[in-house]
């Protein structure tokens, strides 16, 4: 087809337009790249170099269902006791609780947060208030939580709690544990595997220049420390020499809701009696 002078004009103008657009896009991209480079002080992504995978093993044969772990957890982590009204309205907060009857158990089962390898609560949090630490603990930044409760809906184990009203403790607040921040109204809270105790133990080992032994770790969280029958064992699941890894490899070991695909790091040893 023969082109007329008008076509040439149109083609020229189109060429100029495209050149203009390309220049604009290049400018925009260059500006953005510079902005990204200037953000060297932005929070750096944590590396996943750590090989520790903290986990719990709960032996249901040993567990006496005494509830000592529940009370110790409340005390250690400044969990406000629910008032009689709140309890009646089914709004208690128990980071460690009893499930009426879990798979592998004929009676109530102590159930903390499962600290999943693939936690659905972390995926759905819109502001990153809940996240996974390098060592596999599902942690929560209370100050950042907006109280949307999406994490509670997503958690297959129902192990998250919302502060429906302002928390109140009996007596003086000086009785609270200074290592754990109390949570305000309107935020979601959960078990942290006594993260503050782990940090303190790691720091102590660093200062003393001694390795952190498995014996030190086994009863580190408040629930494990308080258990009179030693049914709860804590440790590094990634360390094959640790007690917790040895127990996790037992043929009695089961995980809750494996079909959910969350790969929990809290493992139960099912009852044999």
């Amino acid at each position, binding site marked *: 087809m023969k082109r007329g002078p008008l076509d040439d004009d149109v083609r020229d103008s189109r060429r100029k337009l495209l050149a*203009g657009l390309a220049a604009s896009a290049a400018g925009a991209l260059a500006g953005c790249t510079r902005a990204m480079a200037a953000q060297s002080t932005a929070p750096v992504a944590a590396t996943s170099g750590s090989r520790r995978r903290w986990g719990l093993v709960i032996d249901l044969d040993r567990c006496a269902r005494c509830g000592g772990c529940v009370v110790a957890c409340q005390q250690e982590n400044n969990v406000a006791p629910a008032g009689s009204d709140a309890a009646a309205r089914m709004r208690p907060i128990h980071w460690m609780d009893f499930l009426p009857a879990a798979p592998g158990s004929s009676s109530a089962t102590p159930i903390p947060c499962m600290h999943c390898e693939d936690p659905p609560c972390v995926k759905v949090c819109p502001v*990153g208030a809940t996240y996974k630490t390098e060592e596999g603990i599902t942690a929560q930044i209370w100050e950042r939580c907006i109280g*949307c409760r999406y994490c509670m809906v997503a958690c297959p*184990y129902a192990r998250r709690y919302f502060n429906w009203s302002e928390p109140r403790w009996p007596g003086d607040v000086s009785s609270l544990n200074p290592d754990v921040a109390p949570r305000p109204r309107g935020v979601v809270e959960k078990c942290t595997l006594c993260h503050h105790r782990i940090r303190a133990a790691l720091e102590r080992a660093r200062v003393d220049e001694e390795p952190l032994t498995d014996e030190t770790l086994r009863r580190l969280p408040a629930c494990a420390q308080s258990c009179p029958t030693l049914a709860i064992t804590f440790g590094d699941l990634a360390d094959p020499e640790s007690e917790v890894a040895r127990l996790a490899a037992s043929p009695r070991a089961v995980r809750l809701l494996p079909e959910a695909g969350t790969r929990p790091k809290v493992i139960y040893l099912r009852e044999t009696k």
Partner: protein
Amino acid sequence: MKRAAIGFLLALVAVGAYAWAQQCIHGDAVTDLRTIGAGGAVWGLYVVGDGFFASAALASLVVACVIRVRRSREMGNAAQIALLLGLAGLLASLGCVLADLGRPMAAMVNLPLFGRPRSPFFGTFTLVAGVSLFATVVHLALATRPGWAERAQTAWLWRLVACGWQQTASATRRRGRVDFWVSLALLPLFLGGLVILGVVFGVRAGRPAWQGEFEVVTFVVSGCAAGCSLLALATRASRQVSVPLARALAGLTGLTVLLVVSGEILALRTPYPSVQRYARALLDGAWSNLFWAELVLFFVAAISSLATWRKTASVVWAATTTLLVCTAVFIERFLVLVAWQTHGLGLPWPAGVYHPSGVEWSVLAGVVAAAVLVFLLLTKVCPAGTAASPEPAGPAPTGRRLRLLVTAACLILGLAAAGVGLALSAGLASAPFLDPILSGSPLIFLAGLFLMVLAPVAYELIPERKARGHGVSPPHLP
């Protein structure tokens, strides 16, 4: 009568505001929401309301866009009403979200700073709440410019909205072109918003990313039914009968019944005990009354909507149909959201209960009343919009280059900013589940999308060079 109705609506708004103040003072303990697993539901009436209003609003906006893309002159008024309904619905859904959040002020700060695209909520607060609302306002402002120009002498504000409007063939042509392309571009945004909402609010509690077979589809279809019913009522109230709308309503209502029944049958036959528990709770358990009521309402609404496309159908008839459809859709949303939390958990926690408290009902009533008032105010204030029409004959446009350049720059810069903002927010090339690489990058993403929405404004507002040789100066409106 009209004054009494407005007085009643204002009273409802006041009651809702008082209830919300109570909630702000005493916390969410004044609601009947409770902890999942401890016998309750953490998402209740507010989230159901949010899903309902947002889906109805987006469905209305989809209808508005379809009408404008089809350049249907006879349904131009319906398109305008749909835009206003969409705006009011989106505001109502925002009101419900604010009422539901434990810390709404923290949300306003933290979402733009730390929003994470991996969360489905990212889509709801950026695409649904942010961009859809902004785009609707822009679309409405552009569509009504000729009408504002006619009122330009009465107030400076109208003059501002109508800025630069000239009643010329070229301006009309440009108006039609902008209307067509904006509607076409917004269509996927609104449809995408509906699907995102379906993913978020069709969620089965305790099942990460496990949607039911039909839950997202049911959400979209029932949302469209609610939107169409509200639109059919609004058009009927303005003395018009929209037959295609009434037909669509009948079809959508019937399809929703089919999807709800199929979902229930599949849930009953699933091998998962928890899903079966949920299905039994609907069929003959704790939620059976609501479930059967929902089915009956949908069935009656489907038949009643068949009658609304008759020209003789009264406003009362249309209002009854709308009430039936909206109630049924609301119950459907309620059952999907709440019954999963109370009866569908994977672990053997005790079954829960949820009966919304007076505070929750009051806040919801206040939000609905405020949305109705906003809609009425907008219909009173906004002039009729221009529907896109076939391009009139006239001289070829001049001075297009600058306009095209600015429009293209808006689009490209907006796209680039949105892409960069999204990449920074998602923390690409960093470990997963961490903060955005740059705090505030969700704002860059939003700003980029806003810039893209503003591109048609640039195209429409940048004046043309005076046509040489044609010699006729366009008549300026005051």
